[in-house]
């Protein structure tokens, strides 16, 4: 990790390679995030309706759902999907490059593999995952809207207005911080596991697997910490 910051700010950035990695990350998880985000928004709305209906408060549905999606669901859905798809593929990719000596080959041809492979992927994940998270939130709200529109006949305009009534700058900021933290975690854990993979084919599998497990574990811890800090500012 210390090495990451030392190498990251040394010399010129591998901009082209970072863009390529951003694209790869987006490409890998976009479909799954769209689907899961949409369904999460829709199902959450559907499940919340009965409890609100008891108090005759179904008109609160949009704000309730949007708070849930923006404060918690979008971040978690994106983080878990990315940890699974992006984390494991970074771990496996770098792991197989380590095992087949491609990383050594870069080193002996006087190329800095850490900068070229690790820094680019960590930066790309840190940039891309917050973007995916915002996208997931949007898709989730679309799912919620669809459900509300079908049941309550709410117009899109009313829905948007109500949805964002309760959303504060703090909520958006917290989500963004989460996105950055989770993206960085997924990137650095995947890279660490892959870059330090043990020889042999099982080394690759282990790198991929532990990338997912460790980054999910860290994300849960970070979630708790970030929410605590954010709640501290709320009161």
């Amino acid at each position, binding site marked *: 990790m210390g090495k990451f910051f030392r190498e990251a700010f040394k010399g010129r950035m591998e901009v082209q390679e970072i863009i390529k990695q951003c694209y790869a990350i987006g490409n890998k998880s976009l479909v799954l995030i769209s689907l899961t985000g949409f369904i999460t928004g829709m199902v959450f709305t559907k499940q919340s309706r009965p409890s609100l209906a008891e108090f005759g408060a179904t008109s609160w549905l949009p704000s309730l759902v949007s708070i849930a999606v923006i404060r918690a669901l979008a971040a978690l859905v994106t983080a878990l999907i990315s940890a699974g798809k992006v984390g494991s593929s970074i771990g496996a990719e770098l792991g197989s490059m380590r095992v087949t000596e491609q990383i050594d080959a870069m080193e002996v041809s006087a*190329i800095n593999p850490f900068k070229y492979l690790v820094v680019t992927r960590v930066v790309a994940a840190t940039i891309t995952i917050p973007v995916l998270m915002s996208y997931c939130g949007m898709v989730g709200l679309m799912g919620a809207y669809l459900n509300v529109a079908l049941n309550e006949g709410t117009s899109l305009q009313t829905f948007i207005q109500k949805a964002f009534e309760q959303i504060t700058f703090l909520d958006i900021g917290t989500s963004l911080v989460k996105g950055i933290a989770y993206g960085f975690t997924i990137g650095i854990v995947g890279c660490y596991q892959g870059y330090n993979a043990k020889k042999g084919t099982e080394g690759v599998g282990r790198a991929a697997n532990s990338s997912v497990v460790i980054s999910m574990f860290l994300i849960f811890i970070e979630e708790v910490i970030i929410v605590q800090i954010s709640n501290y500012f709320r009161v």
Partner: protein
Amino acid sequence: MKETNQEPIIHIKDLYKSFGDLDVLRGASLDVFRGENVVVLGRSGTGKSVLIKILVGLLTQDRGTAQVLGKEVATLTEKELRDLRLKIGFSFQNSALYDSMTVRENLEFPLVRNIANLTRGQIDKEVETVLDAVGLLQTINQVPSELSGGQRKRIGIARTLILRPEIMLYDEPTAGLDPITCLEINELINEVKEKYKTTSIIITHDLTCAKVTGDRIAMLLDGSFVRQGSFEEVFDTSEERIKSFFDYNFIQ
């Protein structure tokens, strides 16, 4: 330091390296002089790869001297090590081609990352020159997974040649190849020596390869060099350990 013909390009003295309880190198000493092809022979697991990895700073010895072009590899700064590595071509046992890149990109990669401001035309010309040198111009747009083992070895060698190394280190260049491909690779090694005026260490346990490519043979046994000399000199011995190696290879 002035380099004369007598000064070794590679100077290894009393080299020790162990991994945990496993003593791999135990006092290995070897000198390689300019323009020579030295073959390092030894059974699997005797530390042949470890030896040349120490020479390029991928591993560091526990004890002893490993000098390349007059510089002690283990004590170099990052920048000095980089400069030294530019002068050394390392052909990996499994070729280590970048499997996400085409052959062209594999060859370009070390070039564009080490030499600034090359034009597209210059890059293409260099790539084609070295590909032609290994006889594989037609594979330029293929990806490594489409190549045969022998082709991969050649591309791996071409990738190191593109930086015009003074020294070539070949790690088992013929391992896992059929006999005819082996002969072709052996020829290639000799051609590289002629054309690019390289000094080489060739690691192998293949006696034909040793005989054809080696100006001198050094036999690595139990972590140190037990015999050095011409092919005949090394194997003209009554020592059981060496004879068994020789016999075993010809029975195969």
